[in-house]
């Protein structure tokens, strides 16, 4: 490898504590990967680029916001969770599950964004990934995975999802599509229901 090639890096924080003393030392990691590609190269920008730009050189600015607002954001999350955590009428495991299962919204392959160079005034598209080994976005029949918290806490996003589904109801798809389950060509359903495989990242 080249002597000048940089493979890794690290930071360390040094401080001294007196007996019994406590100190909170915030550290942050941020990344800026603004582009998502679908199919043979249709490019979209992630939603955060509306705030930080699309050139992919803004991880420092994102990190700075994290450092400056971490305590405030953490307090806001605590306040949001408190009425559910304190609800003694529900068993503890249930209260924990309510929040643990929210990972689907943020860590389940979710996409939130808009096509590259599209109008920023238009609402961004939000879609859940069915799962990583069945890589279809916005599959209507499994919206229950995370549709209730979306409706309850982010209703404007949920409305946009349903508007996009509604737009497909009257749309006719005359082309043949690949029915993955049976590995055969099949005609799409048309004019009667929102298609299950509306937004495959592969096709």
């Amino acid at each position: 490898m080249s002597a000048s090639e940089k493979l890794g890096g690290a930071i360390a924080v040094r401080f001294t504590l007196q007996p019994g003393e406590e100190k909170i030392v915030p550290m942050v990691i941020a990344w800026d990967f603004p582009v998502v590609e679908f199919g043979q190269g249709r490019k979209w920008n992630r939603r955060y680029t509306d705030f930080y730009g699309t050139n992919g050189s803004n991880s420092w600015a994102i990190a700075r916001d994290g450092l400056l607002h971490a305590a405030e954001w953490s307090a806001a999350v605590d306040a949001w969770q408190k009425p559910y955590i304190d609800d003694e009428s529900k068993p503890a495991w249930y209260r924990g599950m309510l929040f643990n299962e929210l990972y689907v919204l943020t860590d389940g392959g979710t996409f939130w964004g808009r096509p590259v160079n599209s109008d920023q005034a238009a609402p961004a598209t939000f879609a859940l990934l069915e799962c990583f080994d069945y890589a279809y976005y916005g599959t209507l029949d499994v919206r229950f995975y995370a549709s209730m918290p979306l409706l309850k806490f982010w209703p404007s996003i949920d409305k946009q999802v349903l508007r996009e589904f509604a737009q497909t109801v009257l749309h006719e798809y005359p082309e043949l599509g690949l029915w993955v389950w049976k590995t055969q060509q099949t005609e799409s359903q048309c004019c009667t229901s929102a298609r299950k495989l509306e937004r495959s990242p592969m096709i």
Partner: protein
Amino acid sequence: MGGWFRNYLRDLQGALNQGNRNRFRTESIAPTETMKGIVFERNRAEGVGNEWDGEFSIAALESPGVEVTYQANF
């Protein structure tokens, strides 16, 4: 998927030159607080245009009694 790709050879001889750079960066946040960290970035002709491309940053706040040190190259 994101990342700066290499091949699988142990000696890395077949790796493309991706122009990776790790840059120490410091920024005054308040009279007694300085943000210090590393930006893991790479040379490119223009803005990011591909899904795999982008950058990372790690950072902490230095303040009286708290020192941030760094190693930007390994």
